[in-house]
């Protein structure tokens, strides 16, 4: 660790992993509820479990992004963090807010929670992924602004690199587009139209900047390839990502009451969206092949390469599968969407956060890399989780294809619930894959505590 203040990243990473575990546990609950409908009812109805599952994902990824920024920015800027104590204070504020929100979901009736948190003053709740109470949303904005202030000041007083500039753009964009979560008109079409300004412009816009910056940072560190080379590919890739992704928002505007031309604009530009993901994969492999050093942290290299491949498969290929309007007419809002969502989030954002954790955590704990035994276990966890996710995606895709066929294409369409019964085998298989994912996650956790005689070099 080159700068003392990078240490504030540690609690962020720990919290991120902890919440990740929570996310997966609730995912397993939901997976079981798909086949055993009354499991945990009425204690944890499906909608509550889902809210916890998705909100934990968002919160732990944000913890990961913030931790990554605190780790990376001082090193890139070659200066201590502007205010490490602010960073630590924000950690506790964000963790408390996040924990209170999740507890609120689990322990308080949602309508009551809405009433006591000011939803009658400004109604923002009850929309997918934006279920957070108004107070939590305001808290997120405050934390994000204070965090951005801290990071921006650090960059301003130090060296400005392409990586910090791109990361900052991504993080500022994240905060700015979140503001659209406060806009909730009664007009459902407008509501949905701008809801996507948060959701799509996050995951297929500014988050890609964050992801590319984190990946570029790790690649510079583990390959030793000239920064100039990595920087220019970084710019080309994120240019392609935004060129295709911004108008690509149109693929969400096909069936929500927006004008018909979005079917053309959305189809054409989102058909190009796999290109930047493919470029990112080629880029990651290329840089590793051209490496000038053998970095001892093999696990981090594996995660970095895995991010490229899985982001391309999940976001690129599985996104393309159902993005063209004539296809999407049949697949919209089916299990195909769920399949894409799972692999894209895992491949792009979960894996990039684990990549930076895998690289930074040993250094934060005072060594260049973990012992060989720990790394082997971590790589096992990589394969277990990744393969499990591939199978989750495949089973959900199979369920989705069957669902679309029986419910939407067939001459005698079946009702939704009847179809759900027909595809339950795939839901069982998905749940089994989910258990394997959990086993992989446990292996990942254990890898942090593995000790053996083979002493790693200290920094």
């Amino acid at each position: 660790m080159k700068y003392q203040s990078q240490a504030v990243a540690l609690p962020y990473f720990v919290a991120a992993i902890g919440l990740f575990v929570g996310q997966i546990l609730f995912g397993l609950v939901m997976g079981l509820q798909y086949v055993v409908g009354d499991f945990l009812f009425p204690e944890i109805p499906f909608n509550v479990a889902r809210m916890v599952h998705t909100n934990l994902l968002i919160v732990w990824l944000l913890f990961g992004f913030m931790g990554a920024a605190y780790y990376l920015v001082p090193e890139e800027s070659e200066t201590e963090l502007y205010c490490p104590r602010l960073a630590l204070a924000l950690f506790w504020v964000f963790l408390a807010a996040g924990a209170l929100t999740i507890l609120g979901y689990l322990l308080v009736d949602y309508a009551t929670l809405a009433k006591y948190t000011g939803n009658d003053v400004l109604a923002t709740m009850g929309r997918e992924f934006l279920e957070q109470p108004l107070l939590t949303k305001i808290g997120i904005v405050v934390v994000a602004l204070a965090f951005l202030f801290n990071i921006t000041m650090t960059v301003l007083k130090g060296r400005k690199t392409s990586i910090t500039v791109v990361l900052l753009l991504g993080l500022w964009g994240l905060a700015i587009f979140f503001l659209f979560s406060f806009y909730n008109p009664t007009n459902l079409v407008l509501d949905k139209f701008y809801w996507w300004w948060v959701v799509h412009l996050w995951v297929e816009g500014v988050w890609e900047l964050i992801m590319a910056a984190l990946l570029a940072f790790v690649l510079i560190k583990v390959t030793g390839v000239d920064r100039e080379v990595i920087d220019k590919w970084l710019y080309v890739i994120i240019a392609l990502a935004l060129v295709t992704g911004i108008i690509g928002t149109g693929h969400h505007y096909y069936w929500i009451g927006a004008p018909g031309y979005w079917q053309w604009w959305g189809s054409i530009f989102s058909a190009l969206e796999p290109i930047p993901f493919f470029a990112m994969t080629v880029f990651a492999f290329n840089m590793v092949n051209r490496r000038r050093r053998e970095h001892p942290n093999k696990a981090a290299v594996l995660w970095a390469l895995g991010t490229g491949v899985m982001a391309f498969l999940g976001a690129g290929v599985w996104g393309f599968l159902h993005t063209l309007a004539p296809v999407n007419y049949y697949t919209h809002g089916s299990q195909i969407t769920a399949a894409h969502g799972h692999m894209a989030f895992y491949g792009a954002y979960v894996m990039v956060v684990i990549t930076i954790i895998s690289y930074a955590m040993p250094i934060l704990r005072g060594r260049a890399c973990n012992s060989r035994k720990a790394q082997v276990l971590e790589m096992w966890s990589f394969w277990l989780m990744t393969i499990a996710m591939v199978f989750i995606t495949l089973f959900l895709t199979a369920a989705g294809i069957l669902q679309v066929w029986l419910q939407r294409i067939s001459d005698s369409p079946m009702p939704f619930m009847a179809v759900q019964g027909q595809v339950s085998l795939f839901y069982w298989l998905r749940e089994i894959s989910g258990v394997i994912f959990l086993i992989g996650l446990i292996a990942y956790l254990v890898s942090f505590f593995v000790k053996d005689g083979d002493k790693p070099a200290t920094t």
Partner: protein
Amino acid sequence: MSGTFTKAMARNIFYGGTVFFFLLFLALTFDTTNALPKTDNRQNITPAVAAGKHIWETRNCIGCHTLLGEGAYYAPELGNVYVRRGPEFIKAWIVSQPTGAPGRRQMPNFHLSDEEIDQLIAFLKYTSEIGNQNWPPNIEG
């Protein structure tokens, strides 16, 4: 590589391309804003519809159902439920939840008053009349 490849050019293209496509997106958004009154059924937004949407949101219905295809995929699409089932059925359904049938998916009872249920139904009726390019493909959603 036979050509030149500079970081400055790559950076300029990133900034230029981003601004360009965001402006294009804003232009399309502007046109959409002007065109929406023809399709979004805003003339039928009554106070009851507004209240119904509020009930829809504060009961987190989107956590199980889809509405115009967006939401969770655990329970049926409700964008066209008004057409599929009609108001009487919807009312009877909401009141009789949960079914308690063992092993079946359960919907909570939200203890809505008669007036609230009517408002929710008004919201679902308004939603079913949004001109959304004839999605879903059939009445089953």
